[in-house]
């Protein structure tokens, strides 16, 4: 497969890999290995890591539950507004996370669009753990929507037509025919969404704040420690790095490979 690669492209690929790998190497050089164990198991670090893991998992499930239907709708809708709707839904992908956080505040904050409604129900979302999950879901959702949409668009809806011909209801058709065929794509989308959620920083800080044990996830803890205890920040960074790399390496497979079998 690589045999047709132009030689100049190989050189550029090396440049690309260097850009990514060098900073990672930089992190490794700054880790104080003698103190590493203590730094990542400090109560503060464990609290932040635990919160990150829990919120990212919930956000990933939320992405599955709402992102798959959204991707399905985008794949099958035939409207001239489709391109606009897709661009809007995928906006969090290109929006600076801080802007995302502000937008969430304007929608769900105390004085946001729905703030009054939630207030009346006695619910305050902003600056709670729920806000962390919402911020993570907001930024990670496009990954699930994109992978679902392209998987459905690529396979078409012919199998679904046949299932309906044989008398299967829409829900059965989805559960028995669509979902099993989408599994490889969903796995990829889930991994990407989880990786994005666990690394979320800007929108979380803006919309959820940095309250220890409640909203201070690992990235926020790193940002805080960077001033006070750079060694602890580096140690925690390495843990995040390992989690992200491990998850992607184990679970992420290019889509086209598996769908053929």
């Amino acid at each position, binding site marked *: 497969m690589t045999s047709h690669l132009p030689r100049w492209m190989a050189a550029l690929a090396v440049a690309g890999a260097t850009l990514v790998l060098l900073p990672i190497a930089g992190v490794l050089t700054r880790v104080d290995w003698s103190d590493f164990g203590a730094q990542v198991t400090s109560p503060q670090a464990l609290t932040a890591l635990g919160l990150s893991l829990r919120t990212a998992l919930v956000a990933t499930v939320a992405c599955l539950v709402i992102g798959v239907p959204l991707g399905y709708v985008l794949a099958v809708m035939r409207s001239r507004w489709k391109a606009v709707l897709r661009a809007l839904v995928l906006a969090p992908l290109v929006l600076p996370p801080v802007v995302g956080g502000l937008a969430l505040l304007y929608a769900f904050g105390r004085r946001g669009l729905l703030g009054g409604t939630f207030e009346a129900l006695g619910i305050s979302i902003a600056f709670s753990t729920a806000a962390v999950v919402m911020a993570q879901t907001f930024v990670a959702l496009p990954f699930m929507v994109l992978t679902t949409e392209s998987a459905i668009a690529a396979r078409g809806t*012919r*199998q679904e*037509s*046949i*299932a*309906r*011909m*044989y*008398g*299967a*209801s829409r829900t*059965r058709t989805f559960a*028995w*025919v669509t979902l*099993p*065929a989408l599994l490889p794509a969903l796995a990829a989308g889930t991994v990407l969404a989880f990786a994005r959620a666990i690394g979320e920083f800007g929108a979380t800080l803006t919309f959820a704040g940095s309250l220890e044990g409640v909203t201070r996830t690992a990235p926020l803890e790193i940002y805080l420690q960077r001033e006070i205890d750079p060694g602890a920040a580096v140690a925690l960074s390495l843990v995040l790095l390992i989690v992200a790399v491990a998850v992607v390496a184990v679970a992420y497979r290019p889509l086209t490979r598996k769908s053929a*079998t």
Partner: protein
Amino acid sequence: MSEAFSFTVTAPSRGVGATLSLTRGSVLALLGPNGSGKSTVLEAIAGILPEAAVTPAPPPRVALVTQRGELFPTMSVLANVAFAPRARGVKRAEAHEMALAWLGRVDAADLAHRRPTELSGGQARRVALARALASEPQIVLLDEPFAGLDLESATAIRALLARALKGVTAIIATHTTLDAHALSSHIAVLERGHVAESGPVTRVLTKPRTAFAARMAGRVLLTGVPQREGILLTTGELVRCETEAVAQGAMAALAVQPRDIRIEPTGLADVVTALEPHGDLVRVHGERLAADVDPLAVPLPQPGEAVHFEVTATHAAYSV
């Protein structure tokens, strides 16, 4: 008992507007060349073509076996065949038993636990047929059931179909008269989305009324005014044949097989349009006629060449 009913299928975006008449419990062959709209008609009746309309609405249980079979790739063969019963609410174990029985009827019980990707073309076709029959359809639609199969599998599946379709209302789309003869009692000839001619298989294939149906039947249609010694074509040429069967005042037609036509120095003037291999002979197509020629005995004419065709055997003309 032999109740007849008909459907009109319209799909303007695909240039299809066809009315098909079916007899309950018997098989209709939908004969037409590639691109004549056979698949569109079947998919419309099966209800999987949103842009098509069918009036009156077909019965609720219609099963289409598409050309590629299109089994559900994520399920085992057994689950594929059990799909329709399960969708109708039959319990899993019972549905699997039914599926096994249907697989047995198409000689595919040993494939039950395979994946569709592990099947040969002929095996996949059998399983697709079992899946369709297991849905207990009121109408079975088969789209080119032998396309892409080797001769052996095609023959085996044709025999199987002849057995399985006894008493079943079905439409088989095909481009060969073999399938029409072997499997169906009635035929509809489809020309660019419209029914050119329809009726009992033998009538349509031996006494066609349209040039298109004649061509699909592998014959040459000559029409003209009946005379005592033959029929007089509009070109003023006379073709000798028996005309006793032609009704008084009707036009006469003659459907001649190309094997009964020869290229001679004199006869019906024509221009060669194409040459086609036909067993050990070559079928020389003209604009009006065609002849099967032995390439070892006669020099082959070139496309564009002017030739004369002569009808050698004496046929019986019929009224049109």
